[in-house]
């Protein structure tokens, strides 16, 4: 396949070192890290042989943290400082969180994202999640014996922009280079698709700890296309636990529980749910702090009854997703089950009824997402996977602007393939108006009040004109990670103002830098060493990519003078990489970047032309 080599700079050179890359499933209840080893995707275990890392972080008075099973074991003893399921709070304000009262945390209302007061100070969900990511990074590096070049981190397909941004920030804070944010159901399909060489329409039903997603995917000749996604970002296995929890309170007629009791009872509720996946009844025994003993027997039937509405709640998004994709349930060739909660027999039966077929459960529903993410990470890191496949992902929720009267004007409709950009023109409504307020929202509802507010900014310096004369073009750009940036400019008189915003729930670069500095407060040298190491990784990557590109297309696309120029910049960067001068490495990298812009453009051109030529040849063959 000569055609494909062109698009993969850096991959076609002589056998290079295998680049260490991982896939991370940052889950609500559990998190996992996986990698491709000898061509097979495997979950990496900790020293005790555990694959799952409970998504639990405990903060201690001395400022240290414990993560995973250790933290989970102490959750009942130290409920205020032991944060479970922090993912539910990512990119969320205090008013967005349901069931606040059943949680033992001391929430602090903060602009944009809620925070939690712990023994070690006030922590944001981003910081809490970064502790989990740090633990997984350490596990991977210990297990693989080297530094990671990057990670693919999965997010629920239904995550909005603020939640995606928060996830990326957490990764940066953990010192992980994010190769891509990947939708969880898509990751699951990759794991199934490549393993089973599947083709056709697939549904991925993902009922995790705290979120429900349904995705309709189309798999054709190595192309994974997300036709539609839907779901509920506040529905998951935890809700099943909560139903049991409430049932216990009701049955045992207990009302006054302290925080330790609440945490303990939630844990027992979860155990009962897990037992019911394999048995027809479960015992629940809890000794409360008052000394009172709760002893109950929960039958499968009662459990099914009390959770029937939750199961049904998952079917409405299924229906909507099918409608969006323009498909009937019968057209779905397979249903992939993801998330521990899909072990519940009643869930499997309901999904089977809805799609008219037995769902696929042959991969471990807890691991399948991380396995798929690892496969994607392996490809993105530049380790040839053997198969050529391409992932075309979509915007999960419509992106728009507030217009007059509190109405939403959609700019980018949901399920648009990313990366994508749309521009729309607006005008002033008052004579002499020199500024315009731009409010960016995400959601499907008509009223702005019912959508999520992502960012507000003002475009100033509009020349005074009569109402309706100014032409303000607002451009939305969504990148390959599904992250949005918005810009606006006035075109009417040739005077251009320009502003770009990041969503207000995301952390600014300054904030991430501050948090990083906090965690390295007493080690300034570490910071410098780290910056240098990161700059060198970037520089080396560019050297690799440029060398491969030169070798492949240099003679054809560059004349001798141009080639000499690029080679000179390349040598300059290589020299800088041999030294330890951070500024010099950055400067040389930037110069080579600038110096290869034209070469890159010609290569891209050639790729597009080649694609069309290839297509015509294929057509001839048919």
């Amino acid at each position, binding site marked *: 396949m000569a055609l494909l080599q062109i698009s993969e*700079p850096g991959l076609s050179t002589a056998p290079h070192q295998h680049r260490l890359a991982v896939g991370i499933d940052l889950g609500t209840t559990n998190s996992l890290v996986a990698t491709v080893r000898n061509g097979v995707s495997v979950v990496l275990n900790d020293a005790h042989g555990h694959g799952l890392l409970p998504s639990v972080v405990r903060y201690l008075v001395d400022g240290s943290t414990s993560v995973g099973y250790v933290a989970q074991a102490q959750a009942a003893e130290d409920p205020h400082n032991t944060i479970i399921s922090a993912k539910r709070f990512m990119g969320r304000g205090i008013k967005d969180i349901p069931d606040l009262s059943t949680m033992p945390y001391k929430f602090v209302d903060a602009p944009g994202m809620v925070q939690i007061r712990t023994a070690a100070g006030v922590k944001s969900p981003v910081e809490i999640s970064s502790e989990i990511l740090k633990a997984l990074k350490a596990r991977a590096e210990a297990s693989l014996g080297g530094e990671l070049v990057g990670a693919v981190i999965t997010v629920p397909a239904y995550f909005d922009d603020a939640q995606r941004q928060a996830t990326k920030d957490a990764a940066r804070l953990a010192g992980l280079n994010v190769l891509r944010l990947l939708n969880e159901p898509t990751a699951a399909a990759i794991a199934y698709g490549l393993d089973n060489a599947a083709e056709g329409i697939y549904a991925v039903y993902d009922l995790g700890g705290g979120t429900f997603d349904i995705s309709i995917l189309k798999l054709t000749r190595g*192309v994974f296309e997300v036709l539609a996604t839907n779901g509920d970002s506040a529905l998951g296995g935890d809700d099943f636990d909560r139903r049991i929890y409430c049932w216990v309170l009701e049955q045992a007629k207990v009302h006054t529980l302290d925080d330790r009791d609440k945490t303990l009872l939630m844990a027992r509720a979860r155990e009962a749910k897990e037992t019911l996946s394999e048995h027809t009844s479960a015992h629940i025994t809890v000794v409360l702090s008052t000394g009172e003993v709760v002893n109950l027997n929960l039958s499968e039937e009662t459990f099914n009854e009390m959770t029937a509405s939750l199961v049904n709640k998952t079917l409405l998004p299924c229906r909507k997703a099918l409608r969006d994709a323009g498909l009937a349930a019968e057209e779905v060739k397979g249903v992939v089950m993801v998330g521990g909660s899909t072990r519940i027999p009643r869930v499997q039966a309901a999904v089977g009824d809805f799609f008219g077929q037995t769902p696929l459960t042959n991969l471990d529903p807890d691991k399948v997402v991380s396995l798929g993410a690892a496969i994607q990470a392996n*490809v993105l890191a530049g380790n040839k996977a053997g198969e050529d496949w*391409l992932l075309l992902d979509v915007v999960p929720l419509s992106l728009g602007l507030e217009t007059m009267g509190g109405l939403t004007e959609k700019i980018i409709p949901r399920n648009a393939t990313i*990366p994508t*950009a749309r521009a729309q023109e607006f005008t002033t409504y008052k004579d002499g108006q020199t500024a315009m307020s731009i409010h960016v929202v995400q959601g499907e509802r008509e009223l702005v009040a019912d959508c999520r507010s992502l960012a507000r900014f003002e475009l100033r310096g509009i020349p005074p004109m009569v109402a309706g004369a100014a032409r303000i073009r607002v451009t939305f750009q969504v990148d390959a990670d599904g992250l949005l940036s918005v810009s606006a400019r006035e075109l009417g008189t040739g005077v251009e103002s320009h502003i770009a915003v990041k969503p207000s729930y995301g952390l600014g670069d300054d904030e991430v830098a501050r948090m990083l500095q906090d965690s390295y407060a007493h080690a300034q040298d570490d910071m410098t060493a780290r910056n240098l190491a990161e700059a060198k990784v970037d520089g080396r990557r560019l050297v690799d990519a440029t060398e491969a590109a030169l070798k492949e297309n240099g003679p054809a696309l560059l004349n001798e003078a141009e080639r000499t120029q690029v080679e000179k910049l390349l040598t300059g960067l290589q020299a800088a990489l041999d030294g330890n001068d951070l500024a010099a490495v950055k400067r040389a990298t930037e110069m080579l970047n600038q110096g290869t812009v034209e070469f890159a*453009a010609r290569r891209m051109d050639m790729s597009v032309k080649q694609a069309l030529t290839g297509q015509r040849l294929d057509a001839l063959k048919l």
Partner: protein
Amino acid sequence: MLDFSRDHFALFDLPASYALDGARLDQAYRDIQSEIHPDKFAHAGEAEQRLSMQWTTRVNEAYQTLRRPFDRANYLLQLQGIHAMDANNTSMPMDFLMQHMEWSEELADAKKAQDVAVLDRLEKTLRNEARDFQAQLAEQIDQHHDYPAASETLRKLRFTDKLLAEVGSAYELIE
């Protein structure tokens, strides 16, 4: 040198007509995507990453426009300098408007009465109407090159599509 401003049809090496070989469009789209998608450049230099993003954005826009009959027709008219959906372009035959008002009322009643049978009938009627308009568009644009007529047909199709979407959300309410 490939030109960023070339029209969507040229980008996929397809003839600029309303009638479209959908399979060929899909194939060309995928072939180009498999060369230029950002995933193919996750490990490349900055310049190539940026270009890959710009090109993919451009190709996605072109593909979305061409694959939907409504957008494709609208785009073809734009290439002729006609902005069919402009706020100033509102002329619409009276009988068409009356018919649509009648259907809107039927829809409102069916919604209230949760009458799925009426919704089914309305959906079928509207789909047929949309199909007729699409056939007309093909004739008006590809054969007669009668762009003003196509422009009116397109505005009618917009009405029909909107009502169809409303029928769709009515189903959701009932479910």
